[in-house]
């Protein structure tokens, strides 16, 4: 009996272990940004609504941590997270919005319907800022510290249980 005859069995066993492990893992399809820990890329976006100014990356260098929320009026989960964004705003968090592939009229309509937690909203018609941040969908929320460095990425809509996490990340970013 040769050890070589055991090789297929061992390889198969390795595969089984891997497959069983992966099956037991909760499946997330998130593609994490590798920009976390790096500085924001330079960008300037025109305003996406009539009552808020546009967004410039230099704005994130004023010393205070902020949330950068990637969203769109045509995205349904964005409606689901509106209440949580409102709650974050009420605790004094500054939220900057980037509207992806959106028309000002639709943005205005969305904001009157679901509330406007943003201090500024930039209009990203070609997903350039989204690509620059390494974001792969809407909605996504980034924590940016006062020196323009991305410290945290939240993928998907913000559920109530995510609010404390974001607040903690913002507190960490303050230091």
């Amino acid at each position, binding site marked *: 009996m040769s050890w070589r005859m055991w090789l297929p069995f061992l390889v198969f066993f390795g595969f089984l272990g891997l497959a069983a492990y992966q099956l037991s893992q909760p499946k997330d399809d998130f593609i994490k940004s590798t920009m976390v820990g790096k500085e924001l890329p330079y960008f300037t976006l025109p305003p996406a609504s009539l009552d808020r100014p546009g967004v410039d990356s230099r704005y994130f260098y004023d010393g205070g941590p902020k949330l950068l929320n990637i969203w769109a009026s045509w995205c349904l989960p964005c409606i689901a997270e509106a209440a949580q964004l409102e709650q974050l705003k009420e605790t004094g968090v500054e939220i900057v919005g980037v509207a992806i592939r959106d028309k000002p009229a639709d943005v205005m309509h969305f904001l009157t319907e679901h509330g406007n937690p943003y201090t500024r909203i930039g209009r990203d*018609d070609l997903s350039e800022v989204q690509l620059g941040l390494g974001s792969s969908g809407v909605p996504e929320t980034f924590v940016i510290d006062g020196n323009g460095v991305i410290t945290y990425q939240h993928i998907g809509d913000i559920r109530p249980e995510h609010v404390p996490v974001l607040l903690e990340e913002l507190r960490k970013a303050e230091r």
Partner: protein
Amino acid sequence: MRMLALLLAAMLAAPSAAQDAMPPAPFAYRQLDDPEQEAAAQELMETLRCLKCQSQSIADSDASMAGDMRHQVRIRIAAGEDPDEIRQWLMSRYGDYVSYEPVMSTTTWPLFAIPVLLVLIAGLLFRRRFTRRP
């Protein structure tokens, strides 16, 4: 198999996959005038992964984000950027995931080591088999 898969993809077309109403980016569906540049762009696009659709390259997807990525690729190529620079630019944002062309790195070396090993094993097998005279 792909059929079955698409069938289910079609069935599962959930409302959360809502689409935006904006027209596609200027260079999403427009080729570059210089055929050489367009060929370079096409070659690159075929090896970049559409982030929304996950199992298609940006060169064969109608998702608007894929269109925006094609736009980026084409205008950067037109501006004289090297395809590898553009790939690097995307990989510095999305990691290895965005590129269908794995590059040798600490996470991907087995993809290259194992085929080399296979060549060696095949060579050994042939040697053992045919040097011993019957």
